[in-house]
C-alpha cells in the first residue's frame, strides 16, 4: 500500500526496515519470465544483514528457478499486514538480481541460520539433493509504513551485474 509521496533516496536503510527483514517469516518472491510475465510464490528466506543479501532455497526444477535462469531480475517482499487499518501495514520490497548457487556455496553458517529458523516446519528428511539457492543482491529497496514510503538505493550495486539476455 504505497504512495508516491517519495522521500529522497536514503543512503542508509531505516532500522525499521531492517527489523522487518529480521522478523519476517515468509517472503514473497517475484520472478518473471521474458517477455515480462510475472510469477509469485511464498517462501522461507534468510536475510544476511552483513552481506546485504537474501537467500531462498527452492527446488532445481521449480518455475522460479527456471525463471531466474532465464531472467535474473527478481523482487522479494516481506511485510506485516493489518487487516483492520492501513496504519498498521509495514513492509519491505527488495528489487534486485538473483543468481542460483548450490547449497554448499551458501555456506554452513547461513544454512544453519535458515534451518534453525524454519526447522519445525521443514519436517524430517529435508531433501538437499535437488535444492538450489537463490541469492538476491538488492538494487533498490522500498519500505512502507502505513501510507508513508521510503526508497533506498544500493550504492554498492554495479549496473554491470544485470544479465538481461534479450
Amino acid at each position, binding site marked *: 500500500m504505497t504512495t508516491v509521496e517519495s522521500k529522497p533516496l536514503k543512503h542508509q536503510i531505516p532500522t525499521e526496515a531492517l527489523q522487518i527483514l529480521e522478523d519476517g517469516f515468509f517472503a*514473497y518472491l517475484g520472478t518473471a519470465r521474458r517477455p*515480462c*510475465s510475472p*510469477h*509469485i510464490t511464498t517462501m522461507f528466506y534468510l536475510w544476511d544483514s552483513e552481506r546485504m543479501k537474501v537467500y531462498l532455497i527452492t527446488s532445481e526444477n521449480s518455475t522460479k528457478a527456471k525463471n531466474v535462469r532465464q531472467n535474473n*531480475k527478481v*523482487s522479494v517482499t516481506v511485510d506485516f499486514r493489518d487487516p483492520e*487499518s492501513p496504519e498498521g501495514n509495514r513492509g519491505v520490497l527488495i*528489487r534486485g538480481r538473483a543468481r542460483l548457487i548450490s547449497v554448499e556455496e551458501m555456506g554452513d553458517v547461513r544454512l544453519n541460520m535458515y534451518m534453525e529458523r524454519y526447522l519445525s516446519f521443514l519436517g524430517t528428511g529435508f531433501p538437499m539433493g535437488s535444492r538450489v539457492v537463490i541469492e538476491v543482491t538488492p538494487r533498490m529497496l522500498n519500505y512502507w509504513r502505513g501510507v508513508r514510503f521510503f526508497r533506498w538505493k544500493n550504492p554498492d550495486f554495479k549496473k554491470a551485474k544485470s544479465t538481461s539476455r534479450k
Partner: protein
Amino acid sequence: MGQIVDQTPHKWVYEEIVDRVPPFRWLPPILDVAAQLLLVETVGIIAFFYFNMPVNAAIFGSMAIIYTVVWSAGCLYIIPWLRRLRNPTHETEYEVLAKYRERLFDRKYEIGGSVLTFVGMTAYLFIDEDLLRLFLGDGYGNPILTVLILVLTWDISYRIWLSVLTTLFAASRSISLRRAARNRRGLEYTAYSEVRTLEELDVINLYWGVSAVLLIPIAAESPLLLLGILGYFVAVTGLSGLSLMAMETIPWFPPDVESVLYFEKFAYVSACDNDEPHTTPVIFVYDGKYLYFAISVKSAKYRLIKKNRNIAVLVDMRDNRKVMNNRTLLMRGKGLILGETTPMGVVRIFLNGLWMIRLWRLFSQKYPKYTKYYREQEQNLPLAWQSKPFISRVFVRMEPESITYWREARPPVGLRV
C-alpha cells in the same frame, strides 16, 4: 479429466450441405456465405426479369435472402465453438451440457419442427393468395416461380425454427447449469472458457433473433405474418437475454477456491517493470466472478500495469497457528484497469458502471476500517490517496490466463481457464 471430447453425433442439415455439396464444400466458411448470397440472389434477379415481377418483389425478396445468409453466417461461426466445448468436472453440470448437446443436434427436433413451420407458412401463402399476388405480379401461378418461392420459404422456415429451438435449449441449459453450480463441492467447477463459449452461443441466438427485422417489410403486408415475426423476435431475444443473464451469474471458481477469495484479506500483486517484477500487497474483493484490487493512480503499480498488462496475483491463506496449513491461489494473466478518466476508461465506466458501484460497496464491506480511515484522514492524506472515486483510485480486474491452486503440501492443481 476435461479433455476435448467431440461427443456430437450429428450435424445440422445446413452443416451437412456445406460440408458435402459443391461448391460449398471446397470453400472456407466466409466464402460459403458469400457463395450462398451470390447464387440465390442471381437466381432471384433472373426470376425478377424473366417474370416481370414488381419492384417490391425484388426488394423484399432480397431482404429475405439476406436474412437467410445472415443466419448462415452466424451458424458457421458457432459450429466450431460447439465442437470445442469441454466437460465440466462437476457431474451434474456435465450432465446438463451433455443433454444440451444431444438435444441441439437431434434430427427429429431439427427437421420435425422445420417441416411443421414450412408447412404452416406454405399453407398460409396459398390460402391467403393476396400476399403472393402482390409480390409476384404476373408471375403468379407459374410453376417454376412457385418452386423458387417454396425453396425460399423452406430456407426461412428452417432458420426460424432452428433459432427458436436453439434459444429454448440454451435457456433451459443455462438455468439448469446455474442451479447445478449451487451444489458444487470441493474442486468441482466449469471452466470459464466453457461458460464463455456458451455465452457466445447465446449471443448468436440473440443475433438471429434481431436479424428477423429483415423479414418485417414482407410480413408487414399481412397482419398474421407480422404478428408471427414480431412474436418470434420477442421470444428469441427475450430468451437469449435470459440465458445470458443466467450464465453471467455462474461462479467459475470451485468452492474451495472461492472460500479463499472471500475470506483472505490480502493478495500480492506482481507487475512487470522492464522485466523486473514489482511485488506488493493489495486489498482486493471477489465478486463471485473476478478478483478486483484497488490501486492509486499515483502508484508505481498503476504506471506499470498501464505499460504492461501482464500481472500475477497470489492469494495465500494460512492458519496463524499452523502456518503450513495453507491454501494458495496463484493467478497469472492480464490486469484490466477500471475507473480511469481517460477516454477509453470512461467508455469502460459506462459499460461497467453499475458493477463498479457494487465494487465500492464490496470494498467497504470487506474493509470497513480501511474505507473509514481513508475518509477520515482525507485531509491529511496525500492527494493520491483521498477517497475520491474515479479520480485517484482505480480498480484492476484480474483476467486470468492460468490458475494454480495449492493445498498444503499436496501437488498443485491447475484450473482450466
